């Protein structure tokens, strides 16, 4: 819920700065490992945007695929499970280099 509220806050502040009167569409980047669930964000966004400039706007969610970088051999791979096992060397010390995004990317206003 607080994530949806932050999205509305960010969108409204940028819309006001641009002198817009209405927010038509907000595009989010949501990583596979961001900790936020797209469906929940959508659900909460509808409730949070009521009575704001973002009411009735479309929430578009770009799902960003996770990418891990093996600390042992430098291979980048898509982690299939919660345990990041490098498919090349079997090491488990991989760090995410993509997939943690939780960002308002852009929006359409009028």
């Amino acid at each position, binding site marked *: 819920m*607080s994530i949806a509220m*932050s999205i509305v806050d960010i969108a409204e502040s940028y819309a006001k700065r641009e002198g817009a*009167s209405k927010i038509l569409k907000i595009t989010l980047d949501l990583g596979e490992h961001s900790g936020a669930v797209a469906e929940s964000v959508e659900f909460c966004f509808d409730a949070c945007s009521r009575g704001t400039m973002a009411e009735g706007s479309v929430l578009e969610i770009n799902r960003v695929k996770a990418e891990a970088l093996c600390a042992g051999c430098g291979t980048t791979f898509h982690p299939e499970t919660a345990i990041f*096992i490098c498919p090349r060397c079997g090491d*488990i*010390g991989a760090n995410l280099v993509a997939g943690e995004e*939780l960002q*308002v990317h852009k929006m359409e*206003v*009028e």
Partner: protein
Amino acid sequence: MTRSVITIKKDILAKNDELADENRKRLKEAGILAINLVSSPGAGKTSLLVRTLNEIGNKARFAVIEGDQETDNDAKKIEATGVPVTQINTISACHLDAGMMRKALDTFDLDSIDTLFIENVGNLVCPASYDLGEKMKVALMSVTEGEDKPLKYPKMFRVSSALVITKTDLLPYVDFDITAATDYALKINPDLKVFKVSAKSGDALLELYDFILSGAHDL
């Protein structure tokens, strides 16, 4: 009016992260080690804290921030140990955020604290994403839970520096596989320091106290 597209690229948690950085700076200036305790509800955070404060409360100057949706029940238990405590009731939120933490910090004389425990709201999901400005997160997991918690909630175990498996006195009565639990957690985060304790029997608490009083400062 014509339609236009605005590029924003702003992190949704940016405001929280800015406040967390301010908190971290204040804590650092005051020389405070802040430990954010995170777990499911009922893992035994408060019981472990109460026993810890009763046993080593005279070895450092402690303070506690208690986070719960409602009630000051936990704060009263901490208060009974004689350690300063501030209760935050999050009401509708399922986690503490850096703004709440800042207000709680304002209630203390920071120069008279060495170690600050933050008992987060019992929840293994959202508190993983909200930096409060702490030095580290310590995750708790009790033996009455499933041993696959680290696999189900990997982010929390990935962002934590230590894992405390609690209620080990109950191991003879439950099917919890402590070896598998440890193995799962270390596969998620090979750098985790793992403690296996019982706040009831006191088993293995000394090792944890050593970590709180010295080891955690070096991490």
